[in-house]
Protein backbone atom coordinates (compact mmCIF):
# COMPACT_ATOMS: atom_id res chain seq x y z
CA UNK A 1 0.00 0.00 0.00
CA UNK A 2 1.43 3.44 -0.86
CA UNK A 3 2.30 5.49 2.17
CA UNK A 4 -0.29 8.15 1.28
CA UNK A 5 -2.99 5.56 1.88
CA UNK A 6 -1.45 4.93 5.21
CA UNK A 7 -1.91 8.49 6.27
CA UNK A 8 -5.49 8.39 5.04
CA UNK A 9 -6.19 5.20 6.98
CA UNK A 10 -4.75 6.83 10.07
CA UNK A 11 -7.17 9.75 9.96
CA UNK A 12 -9.99 7.76 11.45
CA UNK A 13 -7.81 5.74 13.79
CA UNK A 14 -8.55 5.34 17.45
CA UNK A 15 -5.06 4.69 18.67
CA UNK A 16 -1.45 4.63 17.65
CA UNK A 17 1.27 2.07 18.28
CA UNK A 18 2.57 1.89 21.79
CA UNK A 19 5.21 -0.20 23.46
CA UNK A 20 4.65 -3.92 23.37
CA UNK A 21 4.48 -3.98 27.13
CA UNK A 22 1.43 -1.71 27.26
CA UNK A 23 -0.98 -3.29 29.74
CA UNK A 24 -3.97 -5.21 28.55
CA UNK A 25 -6.40 -4.17 31.27
CA UNK A 26 -7.12 -0.77 29.77
CA UNK A 27 -9.71 -0.22 27.04
CA UNK A 28 -7.85 -0.69 23.81
CA UNK A 29 -6.89 2.45 21.97
CA UNK A 30 -8.12 5.17 24.30
CA UNK A 31 -5.87 4.94 27.31
CA UNK A 32 -2.24 3.97 27.46
CA UNK A 33 -0.09 3.25 30.47
CA UNK A 34 3.43 4.66 30.33
CA UNK A 35 5.85 1.72 30.71
CA UNK A 36 8.31 3.98 32.48
CA UNK A 37 6.32 5.98 35.08
CA UNK A 38 3.09 3.91 34.96
CA UNK A 39 0.92 7.00 34.56
CA UNK A 40 -2.22 6.47 32.54
CA UNK A 41 -2.27 8.63 29.47
CA UNK A 42 -5.05 9.60 27.10
CA UNK A 43 -4.10 8.57 23.60
CA UNK A 44 -5.43 11.82 22.19
CA UNK A 45 -2.90 13.69 24.33
CA UNK A 46 -0.06 11.43 23.21
CA UNK A 47 -0.92 12.16 19.60
CA UNK A 48 -0.47 15.86 20.21
CA UNK A 49 2.93 15.48 21.86
CA UNK A 50 4.64 13.11 19.43
CA UNK A 51 4.03 10.02 21.58
CA UNK A 52 6.10 11.25 24.49
CA UNK A 53 4.84 10.70 28.04
CA UNK A 54 3.54 13.95 29.51
CA UNK A 55 4.68 12.94 32.99
CA UNK A 56 8.16 11.47 32.62
CA UNK A 57 9.22 12.15 29.03
CA UNK A 58 9.34 8.48 28.06
CA UNK A 59 9.50 8.17 24.29
CA UNK A 60 7.04 5.58 23.03
CA UNK A 61 8.28 3.48 20.15
CA UNK A 62 6.67 4.64 16.92
CA UNK A 63 6.32 3.07 13.50
CA UNK A 64 7.65 4.41 10.22
CA UNK A 65 4.45 6.12 8.97
CA UNK A 66 4.03 7.95 12.27
CA UNK A 67 7.69 8.97 12.21
CA UNK A 68 7.35 10.38 8.72
CA UNK A 69 4.22 12.25 9.75
CA UNK A 70 6.09 13.84 12.66
CA UNK A 71 9.25 14.66 10.75
CA UNK A 72 8.41 16.08 7.35
CA UNK A 73 6.69 19.28 6.26
CA UNK A 74 3.04 18.42 5.91
CA UNK A 75 2.07 16.85 2.63
CA UNK A 76 5.58 16.77 1.19
CA UNK A 77 6.43 13.07 1.51
CA UNK A 78 6.61 11.19 -1.75
CA UNK A 79 7.52 7.55 -1.35
CA UNK A 80 10.19 5.97 -3.55
CA UNK A 81 10.96 2.33 -4.38
CA UNK A 82 7.75 1.13 -2.73
CA UNK A 83 7.75 -1.96 -4.93
CA UNK A 84 11.20 -3.16 -3.91
CA UNK A 85 10.75 -6.15 -1.61
CA UNK A 86 12.54 -9.14 -0.13
CA UNK A 87 12.71 -12.58 -1.67
CA UNK A 88 14.06 -15.76 -0.10
CA UNK A 89 17.40 -16.30 -1.87
CA UNK A 90 18.71 -18.95 0.55
CA UNK A 91 15.38 -20.76 0.98
CA UNK A 92 16.03 -20.20 4.65
CA UNK A 93 14.16 -22.54 6.92
CA UNK A 94 15.30 -22.91 10.51
CA UNK A 95 12.54 -23.16 13.12
CA UNK A 96 10.29 -21.36 10.64
CA UNK A 97 10.64 -20.51 6.95
CA UNK A 98 11.75 -17.00 6.03
CA UNK A 99 8.80 -16.71 3.65
CA UNK A 100 6.51 -17.12 6.64
CA UNK A 101 8.37 -14.43 8.60
CA UNK A 102 8.05 -12.11 5.61
CA UNK A 103 4.34 -12.74 5.22
CA UNK A 104 3.74 -12.16 8.92
CA UNK A 105 5.81 -8.96 8.87
CA UNK A 106 3.84 -7.60 5.94
CA UNK A 107 0.55 -8.40 7.61
CA UNK A 108 1.59 -6.97 10.97
CA UNK A 109 3.05 -3.74 9.61
CA UNK A 110 1.03 -3.19 6.47
CA UNK A 111 4.36 -2.32 4.84
CA UNK A 112 6.04 -4.11 1.93
CA UNK A 113 9.52 -3.91 3.49
CA UNK A 114 11.31 -2.92 6.71
CA UNK A 115 12.22 0.52 5.43
CA UNK A 116 10.19 3.32 3.90
CA UNK A 117 12.13 5.76 1.71
CA UNK A 118 11.06 8.88 -0.10
CA UNK A 119 11.54 12.49 -1.05
CA UNK A 120 10.34 15.13 1.39
CA UNK A 121 10.87 18.61 2.70
CA UNK A 122 12.10 19.08 6.26
CA UNK A 123 11.92 22.69 7.39
CA UNK A 124 11.84 23.55 3.72
CA UNK A 125 14.98 21.56 2.94
CA UNK A 126 14.72 19.00 0.16
CA UNK A 127 15.77 15.65 1.58
CA UNK A 128 15.62 11.96 0.91
CA UNK A 129 14.30 10.28 4.03
CA UNK A 130 14.63 6.65 5.06
CA UNK A 131 12.81 5.26 8.11
CA UNK A 132 13.20 1.72 9.39
CA UNK A 133 10.15 0.02 10.87
CA UNK A 134 10.85 -2.32 13.77
CA UNK A 135 7.61 -4.27 13.30
CA UNK A 136 9.00 -5.73 10.08
CA UNK A 137 11.37 -8.55 11.22
CA UNK A 138 12.86 -6.21 13.81
CA UNK A 139 13.71 -3.61 11.18
CA UNK A 140 16.47 -5.90 9.98
CA UNK A 141 18.57 -5.16 6.90
CA UNK A 142 18.52 -7.73 4.14
CA UNK A 143 19.06 -7.28 0.40
CA UNK A 144 15.92 -5.21 -0.15
CA UNK A 145 16.53 -2.84 2.76
CA UNK A 146 20.17 -2.42 1.72
CA UNK A 147 19.17 -1.74 -1.87
CA UNK A 148 16.53 0.79 -0.86
CA UNK A 149 19.08 2.59 1.30
CA UNK A 150 21.64 2.56 -1.52
CA UNK A 151 19.06 3.97 -3.93
CA UNK A 152 18.01 6.62 -1.43
CA UNK A 153 21.61 7.86 -1.27
CA UNK A 154 21.97 7.78 -5.04
CA UNK A 155 18.70 9.67 -5.48
CA UNK A 156 19.89 12.32 -3.05
CA UNK A 157 23.12 12.66 -4.97
CA UNK A 158 21.32 12.99 -8.31
CA UNK A 159 18.86 15.57 -7.01
CA UNK A 160 21.15 17.49 -4.68
CA UNK A 161 19.27 16.55 -1.56
CA UNK A 162 20.38 15.86 1.99
CA UNK A 163 19.81 12.37 3.41
CA UNK A 164 18.05 11.68 6.70
CA UNK A 165 17.95 8.14 8.06
CA UNK A 166 15.93 7.20 11.12
CA UNK A 167 17.00 3.81 12.41
CA UNK A 168 15.21 1.21 14.52
CA UNK A 169 16.70 -2.19 13.87
CA UNK A 170 18.01 -5.40 15.35
CA UNK A 171 20.77 -5.45 12.73
CA UNK A 172 21.54 -7.49 9.63
CA UNK A 173 18.79 -9.90 8.57
CA UNK A 174 20.02 -13.39 9.44
CA UNK A 175 17.68 -15.11 6.97
CA UNK A 176 19.60 -13.77 3.96
CA UNK A 177 22.99 -14.80 5.31
CA UNK A 178 26.05 -13.20 3.72
CA UNK A 179 23.87 -11.18 1.35
CA UNK A 180 22.69 -9.28 4.42
CA UNK A 181 26.16 -8.86 5.90
CA UNK A 182 27.39 -7.39 2.62
CA UNK A 183 24.63 -4.75 2.72
CA UNK A 184 26.66 -3.18 5.51
CA UNK A 185 29.55 -2.63 3.11
CA UNK A 186 27.21 -1.59 0.31
CA UNK A 187 25.42 1.08 2.35
CA UNK A 188 28.71 2.32 3.83
CA UNK A 189 30.01 2.78 0.30
CA UNK A 190 26.98 4.89 -0.62
CA UNK A 191 27.48 7.13 2.41
CA UNK A 192 31.01 7.77 1.16
CA UNK A 193 29.80 8.68 -2.31
CA UNK A 194 27.24 11.15 -0.97
CA UNK A 195 29.97 12.69 1.18
CA UNK A 196 32.22 13.15 -1.83
CA UNK A 197 29.40 15.13 -3.47
CA UNK A 198 29.38 17.44 -0.45
CA UNK A 199 25.81 16.65 0.53
CA UNK A 200 24.84 16.35 4.18
CA UNK A 201 23.69 13.17 5.86
CA UNK A 202 21.97 13.20 9.24
CA UNK A 203 21.02 10.08 11.14
CA UNK A 204 18.61 9.68 14.02
CA UNK A 205 19.15 6.63 16.19
CA UNK A 206 15.80 5.58 17.64
CA UNK A 207 15.03 2.72 19.98
CA UNK A 208 16.62 0.27 19.34
CA UNK A 209 19.50 0.56 16.86
CA UNK A 210 21.73 -2.50 16.98
CA UNK A 211 24.16 -4.76 15.18
CA UNK A 212 24.87 -4.39 11.50
CA UNK A 213 22.72 -1.31 11.10
CA UNK A 214 24.58 0.59 13.80
CA UNK A 215 27.89 -0.70 12.43
CA UNK A 216 27.28 0.61 8.92
CA UNK A 217 25.32 3.55 7.53
CA UNK A 218 23.69 4.64 10.84
CA UNK A 219 26.83 5.96 12.52
CA UNK A 220 28.55 7.21 9.36
CA UNK A 221 26.38 10.33 9.25
CA UNK A 222 27.85 13.84 9.32
CA UNK A 223 25.71 14.54 12.35
CA UNK A 224 24.27 11.80 14.57
CA UNK A 225 21.24 12.51 16.74
CA UNK A 226 19.53 10.01 19.01
CA UNK A 227 16.22 9.91 20.82
CA UNK A 228 16.16 9.95 24.63
CA UNK A 229 16.43 6.48 26.12
CA UNK A 230 17.09 4.75 22.80
CA UNK A 231 19.15 1.57 23.09
CA UNK A 232 22.13 1.75 20.75
CA UNK A 233 24.95 -0.71 20.24
CA UNK A 234 26.59 -3.51 18.33
CA UNK A 235 26.43 -6.84 20.16
CA UNK A 236 23.25 -8.17 21.72
CA UNK A 237 22.72 -7.51 25.41
CA UNK A 238 22.52 -11.22 26.29
CA UNK A 239 25.66 -12.12 24.36
CA UNK A 240 27.64 -9.49 26.24
CA UNK A 241 26.39 -10.73 29.60
CA UNK A 242 27.27 -14.31 28.66
CA UNK A 243 30.73 -13.25 27.49
CA UNK A 244 31.76 -11.10 30.44
CA UNK A 245 29.74 -13.02 33.05
CA UNK A 246 28.32 -9.98 34.74
CA UNK A 247 25.11 -8.03 34.48
CA UNK A 248 25.28 -4.72 32.67
CA UNK A 249 24.89 -1.26 34.20
CA UNK A 250 21.37 0.16 34.03
CA UNK A 251 21.99 2.94 31.52
CA UNK A 252 24.44 0.86 29.46
CA UNK A 253 24.28 1.82 25.78
CA UNK A 254 21.43 4.27 25.96
CA UNK A 255 21.55 7.32 23.74
CA UNK A 256 22.60 9.35 26.78
CA UNK A 257 25.40 6.88 27.54
CA UNK A 258 26.88 7.23 24.08
CA UNK A 259 26.51 10.98 24.19
CA UNK A 260 28.57 10.93 27.38
CA UNK A 261 31.24 8.76 25.72
CA UNK A 262 31.40 11.07 22.75
CA UNK A 263 29.97 8.71 20.16
CA UNK A 264 27.09 10.89 18.98
CA UNK A 265 26.33 14.57 18.61
CA UNK A 266 23.21 15.08 20.68
CA UNK A 267 20.28 13.40 22.33
CA UNK A 268 17.26 15.29 21.02
CA UNK A 269 13.73 14.97 22.42
CA UNK A 270 11.27 13.91 19.75
CA UNK A 271 9.32 17.14 20.02
CA UNK A 272 12.39 19.11 19.00
CA UNK A 273 13.71 16.71 16.39
CA UNK A 274 12.25 18.33 13.28
CA UNK A 275 13.38 21.82 14.15
CA UNK A 276 16.81 20.57 15.20
CA UNK A 277 17.31 18.70 11.93
CA UNK A 278 16.03 21.65 9.93
CA UNK A 279 18.40 24.01 11.70
CA UNK A 280 21.33 21.64 11.24
CA UNK A 281 20.54 21.50 7.53
CA UNK A 282 20.58 25.30 7.49
CA UNK A 283 24.23 25.03 8.49
CA UNK A 284 25.25 22.07 6.37
CA UNK A 285 23.18 22.44 3.23
CA UNK A 286 24.80 25.71 2.21
CA UNK A 287 23.43 28.91 0.75
CA UNK A 288 20.27 29.29 -1.29
CA UNK A 289 18.31 26.87 0.83
CA UNK A 290 15.09 28.02 2.47
CA UNK A 291 15.41 28.89 6.15
CA UNK A 292 14.47 26.38 8.78
CA UNK A 293 11.02 26.17 10.23
CA UNK A 294 9.68 29.01 12.33
CA UNK A 295 10.90 28.97 15.90
CA UNK A 296 13.96 26.88 15.23
CA UNK A 297 16.38 29.69 14.54
CA UNK A 298 17.38 30.55 18.09
CA UNK A 299 17.58 27.04 19.47
CA UNK A 300 20.98 25.82 20.54
CA UNK A 301 21.55 22.17 21.19
CA UNK A 302 23.74 21.76 24.23
CA UNK A 303 25.32 18.57 25.48
CA UNK A 304 22.25 17.84 27.55
CA UNK A 305 19.93 18.30 24.63
CA UNK A 306 18.39 21.41 26.27
CA UNK A 307 17.81 24.87 24.95
Amino acid at each position, binding site marked *: MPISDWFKAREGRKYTTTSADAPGDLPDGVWVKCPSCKHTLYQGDLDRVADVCLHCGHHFDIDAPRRIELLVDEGTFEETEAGLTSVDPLRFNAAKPYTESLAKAKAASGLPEAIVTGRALVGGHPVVLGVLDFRFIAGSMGSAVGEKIARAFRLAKREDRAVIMVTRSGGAR*MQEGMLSLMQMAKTAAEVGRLASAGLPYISVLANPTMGGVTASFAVLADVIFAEPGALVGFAGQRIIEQTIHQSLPKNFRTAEYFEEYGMLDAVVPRGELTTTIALTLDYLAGAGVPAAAEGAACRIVSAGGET
Partner: protein
Amino acid sequence: MARFVMEFERPLAELEEKLAELKRLDIAVTPELADEISGLEAEIEKLHETLYAALSPWEKVQVSRHPERPKTQDYVEMLFDDVIELHGDRAFGDDEAIMTALATLDGRRCMVIGHRKGKNTKENIKRNFGSPHPEGFRKARRAMKLAEKFGLPVVTFIDTQGAFPGLEAEQRGQAWAIAENLATLASLRTPVIAVGIGEGGSGGALAIGFGDRLIMLENAYYSVITPEACASIIFKDATRAPEAAPCLAMTADDLMRLGLADEIIREPRGGAHRDPASVFASVARVVGEALGQLAGVPLDELVEERHRRLEAIGVYDE
Protein backbone atom coordinates in the same frame (compact mmCIF):
# COMPACT_ATOMS: atom_id res chain seq x y z
CA MET B 1 52.07 -36.06 18.43
CA ALA B 2 48.45 -36.46 19.47
CA ARG B 3 46.37 -34.55 16.98
CA PHE B 4 43.37 -32.51 18.07
CA VAL B 5 40.38 -34.63 17.12
CA MET B 6 37.31 -32.87 15.78
CA GLU B 7 33.90 -34.22 16.76
CA PHE B 8 33.15 -35.75 13.36
CA GLU B 9 36.59 -37.39 13.21
CA ARG B 10 35.99 -39.51 16.30
CA PRO B 11 35.02 -42.76 14.51
CA LEU B 12 38.26 -42.48 12.56
CA ALA B 13 40.31 -41.69 15.63
CA GLU B 14 38.88 -44.74 17.40
CA LEU B 15 39.86 -47.03 14.55
CA GLU B 16 43.33 -45.53 14.43
CA GLU B 17 43.71 -46.11 18.15
CA LYS B 18 42.62 -49.71 17.79
CA LEU B 19 45.13 -50.19 14.99
CA ALA B 20 47.91 -48.79 17.13
CA GLU B 21 46.96 -51.20 19.90
CA LEU B 22 47.03 -54.18 17.58
CA LYS B 23 50.41 -53.16 16.26
CA ARG B 24 51.76 -53.16 19.79
CA LEU B 25 50.93 -56.88 20.15
CA ASP B 26 53.51 -59.49 19.26
CA ILE B 27 52.74 -60.70 15.77
CA ALA B 28 55.00 -63.78 16.14
CA VAL B 29 52.79 -65.10 18.94
CA THR B 30 49.48 -64.53 17.17
CA PRO B 31 50.06 -64.63 13.40
CA GLU B 32 46.35 -64.18 12.62
CA LEU B 33 46.83 -60.56 13.74
CA ALA B 34 48.36 -59.71 10.38
CA ASP B 35 45.04 -60.18 8.62
CA GLU B 36 43.21 -58.16 11.22
CA ILE B 37 45.71 -55.34 10.89
CA SER B 38 45.52 -55.15 7.14
CA GLY B 39 41.74 -55.31 7.30
CA LEU B 40 41.66 -52.44 9.76
CA GLU B 41 44.07 -50.45 7.63
CA ALA B 42 41.81 -50.81 4.63
CA GLU B 43 38.83 -49.76 6.70
CA ILE B 44 40.67 -46.69 7.94
CA GLU B 45 41.70 -45.71 4.44
CA LYS B 46 38.12 -46.04 3.25
CA LEU B 47 36.74 -44.03 6.13
CA HIS B 48 39.40 -41.40 5.51
CA GLU B 49 38.09 -40.97 2.00
CA THR B 50 34.39 -40.85 2.80
CA LEU B 51 34.73 -38.81 5.97
CA TYR B 52 36.50 -35.89 4.33
CA ALA B 53 35.03 -36.21 0.85
CA ALA B 54 32.06 -33.93 1.42
CA LEU B 55 32.21 -32.09 4.72
CA SER B 56 28.95 -30.60 5.94
CA PRO B 57 28.86 -26.88 6.74
CA TRP B 58 29.08 -27.62 10.45
CA GLU B 59 32.05 -29.95 9.91
CA LYS B 60 33.75 -27.20 7.93
CA VAL B 61 33.17 -24.81 10.82
CA GLN B 62 35.04 -27.30 13.03
CA VAL B 63 37.88 -27.53 10.53
CA SER B 64 38.02 -23.73 10.30
CA ARG B 65 38.46 -23.62 14.10
CA HIS B 66 41.01 -26.40 14.33
CA PRO B 67 43.68 -25.26 16.79
CA GLU B 68 46.48 -26.38 14.48
CA ARG B 69 45.03 -24.61 11.44
CA PRO B 70 47.49 -22.08 9.95
CA LYS B 71 46.79 -18.58 11.22
CA THR B 72 47.50 -15.05 10.04
CA GLN B 73 50.96 -14.92 11.60
CA ASP B 74 51.85 -18.23 9.92
CA TYR B 75 50.93 -16.82 6.52
CA VAL B 76 52.88 -13.64 7.22
CA GLU B 77 55.89 -15.65 8.33
CA MET B 78 55.83 -18.24 5.56
CA LEU B 79 54.70 -16.16 2.56
CA PHE B 80 56.19 -12.75 3.13
CA ASP B 81 59.70 -11.30 3.47
CA ASP B 82 61.08 -8.16 5.08
CA VAL B 83 58.18 -7.94 7.52
CA ILE B 84 57.82 -4.86 9.69
CA GLU B 85 54.93 -5.14 12.12
CA LEU B 86 53.12 -1.89 12.88
CA HIS B 87 51.49 -1.44 16.26
CA GLY B 88 48.70 0.64 17.73
CA ASP B 89 45.80 2.83 16.71
CA ARG B 90 47.40 6.13 17.82
CA ALA B 91 44.45 6.80 20.09
CA PHE B 92 43.93 4.11 22.68
CA GLY B 93 46.15 1.07 22.44
CA ASP B 94 47.57 -1.84 20.50
CA ASP B 95 45.01 -4.58 19.99
CA GLU B 96 46.84 -7.83 19.38
CA ALA B 97 43.70 -9.42 17.96
CA ILE B 98 44.59 -7.57 14.76
CA MET B 99 48.00 -7.69 13.08
CA THR B 100 49.13 -4.99 10.69
CA ALA B 101 52.46 -5.21 8.90
CA LEU B 102 54.48 -4.00 5.98
CA ALA B 103 55.43 -7.15 4.14
CA THR B 104 56.72 -8.32 0.76
CA LEU B 105 55.21 -11.14 -1.31
CA ASP B 106 57.43 -12.29 -4.17
CA GLY B 107 59.00 -8.87 -4.47
CA ARG B 108 55.68 -7.01 -4.20
CA ARG B 109 55.49 -4.56 -1.31
CA CYS B 110 52.18 -4.87 0.54
CA MET B 111 50.29 -3.92 3.66
CA VAL B 112 49.05 -7.00 5.47
CA ILE B 113 46.10 -6.78 7.86
CA GLY B 114 44.76 -9.84 9.61
CA HIS B 115 42.84 -11.11 12.59
CA ARG B 116 45.29 -12.80 14.87
CA LYS B 117 44.39 -15.80 16.98
CA GLY B 118 46.86 -17.43 19.31
CA LYS B 119 48.42 -20.86 18.97
CA ASN B 120 47.92 -21.71 22.63
CA THR B 121 45.92 -20.50 25.60
CA LYS B 122 48.52 -17.99 26.72
CA GLU B 123 48.73 -16.41 23.28
CA ASN B 124 44.98 -16.55 22.87
CA ILE B 125 44.40 -14.62 26.06
CA LYS B 126 46.81 -11.92 24.87
CA ARG B 127 45.12 -11.83 21.50
CA ASN B 128 41.60 -12.19 22.84
CA PHE B 129 41.05 -15.29 20.66
CA GLY B 130 41.20 -13.09 17.58
CA SER B 131 38.19 -10.98 18.54
CA PRO B 132 39.09 -7.31 18.16
CA HIS B 133 38.09 -4.32 20.22
CA PRO B 134 37.49 -0.95 18.51
CA GLU B 135 41.18 -0.07 18.79
CA GLY B 136 41.95 -3.16 16.71
CA PHE B 137 39.68 -2.01 13.90
CA ARG B 138 41.11 1.50 14.19
CA LYS B 139 44.62 0.09 13.97
CA ALA B 140 43.52 -1.72 10.80
CA ARG B 141 42.05 1.49 9.42
CA ARG B 142 45.25 3.34 10.09
CA ALA B 143 47.11 0.66 8.13
CA MET B 144 44.61 0.98 5.26
CA LYS B 145 45.11 4.75 5.06
CA LEU B 146 48.86 4.35 5.24
CA ALA B 147 48.75 1.83 2.40
CA GLU B 148 46.60 4.19 0.35
CA LYS B 149 48.93 7.11 0.93
CA PHE B 150 51.98 5.22 -0.24
CA GLY B 151 50.40 3.12 -2.95
CA LEU B 152 50.77 -0.26 -1.24
CA PRO B 153 48.19 -2.93 -2.06
CA VAL B 154 46.39 -4.34 0.97
CA VAL B 155 46.17 -8.06 1.66
CA THR B 156 43.84 -9.05 4.49
CA PHE B 157 43.49 -12.37 6.29
CA ILE B 158 40.06 -12.99 7.78
CA ASP B 159 39.98 -15.26 10.84
CA THR B 160 37.71 -14.21 13.68
CA GLN B 161 34.57 -15.37 15.44
CA GLY B 162 33.60 -11.72 15.46
CA ALA B 163 34.13 -8.36 17.07
CA PHE B 164 34.47 -8.76 20.84
CA PRO B 165 31.08 -8.44 22.57
CA GLY B 166 32.24 -6.75 25.74
CA LEU B 167 31.30 -3.76 27.84
CA GLU B 168 34.38 -1.68 27.10
CA ALA B 169 34.31 -2.60 23.42
CA GLU B 170 30.81 -1.17 23.20
CA GLN B 171 31.74 1.85 25.29
CA ARG B 172 34.60 2.73 22.96
CA GLY B 173 32.36 2.43 19.92
CA GLN B 174 32.63 -1.04 18.42
CA ALA B 175 29.91 -0.24 15.88
CA TRP B 176 31.53 3.07 14.98
CA ALA B 177 34.94 1.49 14.45
CA ILE B 178 33.53 -1.22 12.17
CA ALA B 179 31.43 1.25 10.19
CA GLU B 180 34.43 3.52 9.60
CA ASN B 181 36.39 0.60 8.24
CA LEU B 182 33.61 -0.36 5.86
CA ALA B 183 33.46 3.16 4.45
CA THR B 184 37.26 3.30 4.25
CA LEU B 185 37.62 -0.05 2.50
CA ALA B 186 34.81 0.72 0.07
CA SER B 187 36.65 3.74 -1.32
CA LEU B 188 40.30 2.99 -0.56
CA ARG B 189 42.44 4.09 -3.48
CA THR B 190 44.68 1.05 -3.57
CA PRO B 191 43.99 -2.61 -4.38
CA VAL B 192 42.46 -4.69 -1.58
CA ILE B 193 42.57 -8.49 -1.59
CA ALA B 194 40.72 -10.29 1.19
CA VAL B 195 41.49 -13.91 2.01
CA GLY B 196 39.20 -16.01 4.24
CA ILE B 197 41.59 -18.40 5.99
CA GLY B 198 39.43 -19.63 8.89
CA GLU B 199 36.49 -18.07 10.62
CA GLY B 200 34.58 -15.15 9.18
CA GLY B 201 32.24 -14.03 11.92
CA SER B 202 29.93 -11.16 11.07
CA GLY B 203 30.82 -7.47 11.22
CA GLY B 204 34.14 -8.11 12.90
CA ALA B 205 35.21 -10.11 9.85
CA LEU B 206 33.71 -7.69 7.34
CA ALA B 207 35.61 -4.76 8.89
CA ILE B 208 38.74 -6.03 7.12
CA GLY B 209 36.98 -8.52 4.90
CA PHE B 210 36.07 -7.20 1.46
CA GLY B 211 37.68 -5.40 -1.43
CA ASP B 212 38.58 -6.03 -5.06
CA ARG B 213 38.89 -9.79 -4.55
CA LEU B 214 37.55 -12.25 -2.03
CA ILE B 215 39.48 -15.50 -1.93
CA MET B 216 38.24 -18.30 0.32
CA LEU B 217 40.02 -21.35 1.61
CA GLU B 218 37.88 -24.42 1.02
CA ASN B 219 36.98 -24.95 4.67
CA ALA B 220 36.86 -21.32 5.74
CA TYR B 221 33.46 -19.88 6.55
CA TYR B 222 32.10 -16.35 6.31
CA SER B 223 28.74 -15.62 7.86
CA VAL B 224 26.31 -12.92 8.90
CA ILE B 225 26.26 -14.57 12.33
CA THR B 226 28.06 -17.51 13.91
CA PRO B 227 26.00 -20.73 13.84
CA GLU B 228 25.95 -20.75 17.65
CA ALA B 229 24.54 -17.23 17.90
CA CYS B 230 22.04 -18.01 15.14
CA ALA B 231 20.90 -21.14 16.97
CA SER B 232 20.56 -19.28 20.24
CA ILE B 233 18.27 -16.74 18.53
CA ILE B 234 16.23 -19.15 16.42
CA PHE B 235 16.09 -22.24 18.63
CA LYS B 236 16.90 -20.48 21.93
CA ASP B 237 19.64 -23.09 22.16
CA ALA B 238 23.25 -22.54 21.05
CA THR B 239 23.99 -26.26 21.05
CA ARG B 240 21.79 -26.60 17.97
CA ALA B 241 24.44 -24.78 15.90
CA PRO B 242 24.90 -27.83 13.63
CA GLU B 243 21.31 -27.33 12.45
CA ALA B 244 21.75 -23.59 11.94
CA ALA B 245 25.01 -23.85 9.98
CA PRO B 246 23.56 -25.23 6.72
CA CYS B 247 20.84 -22.54 6.69
CA LEU B 248 23.26 -19.64 6.68
CA ALA B 249 24.99 -20.27 3.32
CA MET B 250 28.36 -19.60 4.86
CA THR B 251 30.80 -22.01 3.20
CA ALA B 252 33.26 -21.08 0.46
CA ASP B 253 31.09 -22.92 -2.06
CA ASP B 254 28.01 -20.99 -0.92
CA LEU B 255 29.88 -17.71 -1.34
CA MET B 256 30.92 -18.65 -4.88
CA ARG B 257 27.34 -19.60 -5.68
CA LEU B 258 26.09 -16.26 -4.37
CA GLY B 259 28.69 -14.42 -6.42
CA LEU B 260 30.43 -13.02 -3.35
CA ALA B 261 33.75 -14.90 -3.58
CA ASP B 262 36.07 -14.92 -6.58
CA GLU B 263 38.10 -18.04 -5.98
CA ILE B 264 38.34 -21.06 -3.71
CA ILE B 265 41.68 -22.48 -2.65
CA ARG B 266 41.38 -26.23 -2.19
CA GLU B 267 42.76 -27.68 1.02
CA PRO B 268 44.50 -30.99 1.59
CA ARG B 269 42.20 -33.82 2.62
CA GLY B 270 41.12 -33.28 6.21
CA GLY B 271 41.96 -29.58 6.28
CA ALA B 272 44.77 -27.05 5.92
CA HIS B 273 46.44 -28.24 9.13
CA ARG B 274 47.21 -31.65 7.51
CA ASP B 275 49.66 -30.07 5.08
CA PRO B 276 50.21 -26.37 5.77
CA ALA B 277 53.10 -26.08 3.29
CA SER B 278 50.86 -26.89 0.33
CA VAL B 279 48.31 -24.34 1.53
CA PHE B 280 50.95 -21.64 1.91
CA ALA B 281 52.08 -22.32 -1.65
CA SER B 282 48.53 -22.09 -3.02
CA VAL B 283 47.73 -18.91 -1.14
CA ALA B 284 50.99 -17.31 -2.26
CA ARG B 285 50.23 -18.16 -5.88
CA VAL B 286 46.58 -17.02 -5.85
CA VAL B 287 47.26 -13.79 -3.93
CA GLY B 288 50.28 -13.10 -6.14
CA GLU B 289 48.16 -13.50 -9.27
CA ALA B 290 45.48 -11.18 -7.89
CA LEU B 291 48.09 -8.57 -6.97
CA GLY B 292 49.44 -8.82 -10.51
CA GLN B 293 46.00 -8.36 -12.07
CA LEU B 294 45.21 -5.32 -9.96
CA ALA B 295 48.63 -3.67 -10.06
CA GLY B 296 48.18 -1.78 -13.31
CA VAL B 297 44.56 -0.70 -12.88
CA PRO B 298 44.10 3.09 -12.70
CA LEU B 299 42.87 3.99 -9.20
CA ASP B 300 39.66 5.71 -10.34
CA GLU B 301 38.74 2.63 -12.29
CA LEU B 302 39.71 0.33 -9.42
CA VAL B 303 37.45 2.13 -6.94
CA GLU B 304 34.61 2.42 -9.46
CA GLU B 305 34.79 -1.31 -10.10
CA ARG B 306 34.79 -2.03 -6.35
CA HIS B 307 31.67 0.12 -5.99
CA ARG B 308 30.04 -1.76 -8.84
CA ARG B 309 30.83 -5.04 -7.11
CA LEU B 310 29.15 -3.79 -3.93
CA GLU B 311 26.18 -2.30 -5.78
CA ALA B 312 25.47 -5.63 -7.42
CA ILE B 313 25.17 -7.52 -4.13
CA GLY B 314 21.66 -8.44 -3.12
CA VAL B 315 18.70 -10.48 -4.31
CA TYR B 316 15.31 -8.78 -4.25
CA ASP B 317 12.11 -8.31 -6.16
CA GLU B 318 10.82 -5.13 -7.82
